[in-house]
């Protein structure tokens, strides 16, 4: 045991390096192998243990600088840290309570906007068209403040927002018509893209930032659901207690609690995702792993049922809309699984499973397209059919290319990043399509 001191030193060094979030345990192994080789070479030239260790450590470089370099390459590992800690020391001046105050103010603001809308806007259709316009500016505003957007980006967000607001309110929609319904459904997608531009701090060209926004969206859904569940339990209990003493909470719930709680929860959830991601961090990959096989089973069952029914022309219109929703859900699951995956890991069983999911979704999509085309051939065009057909084609393209790239990755022909890049590059297409549905469909179809 003549090298006991050296071993102890290397052990201490390992412990020190392991505390760096950007350097994974496998990287520490790799660095340790390097360190030991260097030490052995120094010893061969006649240095003693301690001298050799010191030279090797010095040659390895300043640990802060090296760790920064690792962080630059593996920014995903730092994701939870980036938002908890200010990116540069100049930011540290803002006390944490200020952010909380701003978030709460924005949450109350979103609630007030919705309440005002409920009070003053006449007609359910008009309100439904404006709901996104009332809530999402507060969320977008939070990111605009948080990311300190420059004037150009702010204008770049405000102009499309204004166009959308004008179009949604100035178009003479026929009450209860399908173009109005389509606008109500598609406007939030465009607004979400604008929120995304604010989220990525105007760096919308960056694939990495886009993927961060996809992660953020997934986490937001989880947090919002958790908040909603908690809120439901609380109101339920309050309801029960008040009912026992003879007070009826329902009008208060309808008129005050829900209009404030739902949009407020959205803003607060966004802040929570920003501030405390690591709480849910480990749940995300687990959720995708649980739901991928379940979704495959669901898709296969749906396929079997559709095949058994036969005669696709008679398929109910409601079913087609539902199936569209299922496919969008599959896509979200896929995107979320991809965003949660370590892009350096070699192909595994889960990647095969993902390919099966894509194949099943493609099969369902093909059936849907056939059904839609049959309906169109038989009953002619309608805004609903064209919107559904467009969405289906977009989904088909994304799924087909995803499947193709996954096959390439499984066969070791392509890196996983190719798959990631395809997803992030394709995402804006959906927002563009949504914009077309909102802006162009109503005039084309006479606002029917």
């Amino acid at each position, binding site marked *: 045991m003549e090298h006991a001191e050296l071993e102890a030193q290397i052990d201490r060094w390992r412990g020190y390096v392991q505390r760096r979030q950007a350097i994974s345990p496998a*990287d520490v*192994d790799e660095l*340790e*192998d390097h360190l030991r080789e*260097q030490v052995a070479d120094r010893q061969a030239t006649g240095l003693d243990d301690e001298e050799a260790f010191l030279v090797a450590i010095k040659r390895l*470089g300043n640990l802060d600088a*090296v760790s920064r370099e690792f962080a*630059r390459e593996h920014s995903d590992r730092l994701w939870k840290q980036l938002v908890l800690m200010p990116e540069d020391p100049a930011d540290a001046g803002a006390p944490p309570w200020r952010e909380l105050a701003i978030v709460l103010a924005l949450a109350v603001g979103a609630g007030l906007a919705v309440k005002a809308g409920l009070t003053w806007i006449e007609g359910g259709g008009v309100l439904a068209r404006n709901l996104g316009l009332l809530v999402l500016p507060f969320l977008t505003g939070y990111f605009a403040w948080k990311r300190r957007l420059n004037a150009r980006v702010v204008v770049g967000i405000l102009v499309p927002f204004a166009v959308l607001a004008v179009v949604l309110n100035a178009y003479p929609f026929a009450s209860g018509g399908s173009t109005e319904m389509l606008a109500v459904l598609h406007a939030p997608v465009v607004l979400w893209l604008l929120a995304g531009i604010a989220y990525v701090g105007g760096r919308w060209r960056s694939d990495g930032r886009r993927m961060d926004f996809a992660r953020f969206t997934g986490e937001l859904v989880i947090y919002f659901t958790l908040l909603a569940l908690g809120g439901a339990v609380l109101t339920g209990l309050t309801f029960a207690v008040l009912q026992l003493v003879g007070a009826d909470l329902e009008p208060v719930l309808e008129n005050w609690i829900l209009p404030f709680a739902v949009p407020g929860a959205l803003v607060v959830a966004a802040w929570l995702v920003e501030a405390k991601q690591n709480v849910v961090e480990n749940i995300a990959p687990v959720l995708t792993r649980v739901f991928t096989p379940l979704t495959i089973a669901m898709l296969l069952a749906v396929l079997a049922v559709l095949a058994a029914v036969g005669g696709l022309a008679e398929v109910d219109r409601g079913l087609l809309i539902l199936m569209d929703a299922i496919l969008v859900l599959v896509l979200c699951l896929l995107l979320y699984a991809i965003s949660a995956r370590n892009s*350096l890991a070699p192909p595994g069983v889960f990647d095969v499973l993902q390919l099966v999911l894509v194949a099943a979704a493609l099969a369902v999509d093909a059936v849907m397209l056939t059904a839609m085309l049959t309906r169109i051939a038989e009953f002619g065009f309608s805004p609903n059919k064209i919107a559904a057909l467009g969405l289906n084609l977009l989904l088909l393209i994304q799924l087909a290319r995803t499947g193709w790239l996954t096959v390439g990755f499984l066969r070791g022909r*392509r890196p996983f990043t190719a798959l990631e890049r395809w997803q992030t590059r394709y995402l804006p297409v959906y927002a563009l399509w949504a914009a077309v549905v909102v802006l162009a469909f109503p005039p084309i179809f006479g606002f029917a």
Partner: protein
Amino acid sequence: MRIDKDLVAASATPLVLGILSDGDLYGYAILKRVGELSGGGMQWTDGMLYPLLHRLERLGYVSSSWGTSEAGRRRKHYAITPAGREAFADRQEQWTVVAEALRQVWHTAQRPPAVVQGWA
């Protein structure tokens, strides 16, 4: 002689790809090879090699696999991929252009104009 840090950074990718195109290696051996090739003139900060290798791996230029060293330690080996060979050929062309331009600049600069003395 100390080589400027930007120059080291710019030449690191083609150097690593070129070294790996001669055969699979692990990190420390790559650095040793860099030292030999430059006659000890290029001293990298050792730790910086690994983020670079990981980036090349992410880009699909190299692939890695874990093995064991003679001493029985875990050791990560890197191998160049077909995409890496393409990137290497591309880099080589770029560097040839740069080197040719520099060669001409060196050539003209070797004859210092006589007026310089009067300026000092």
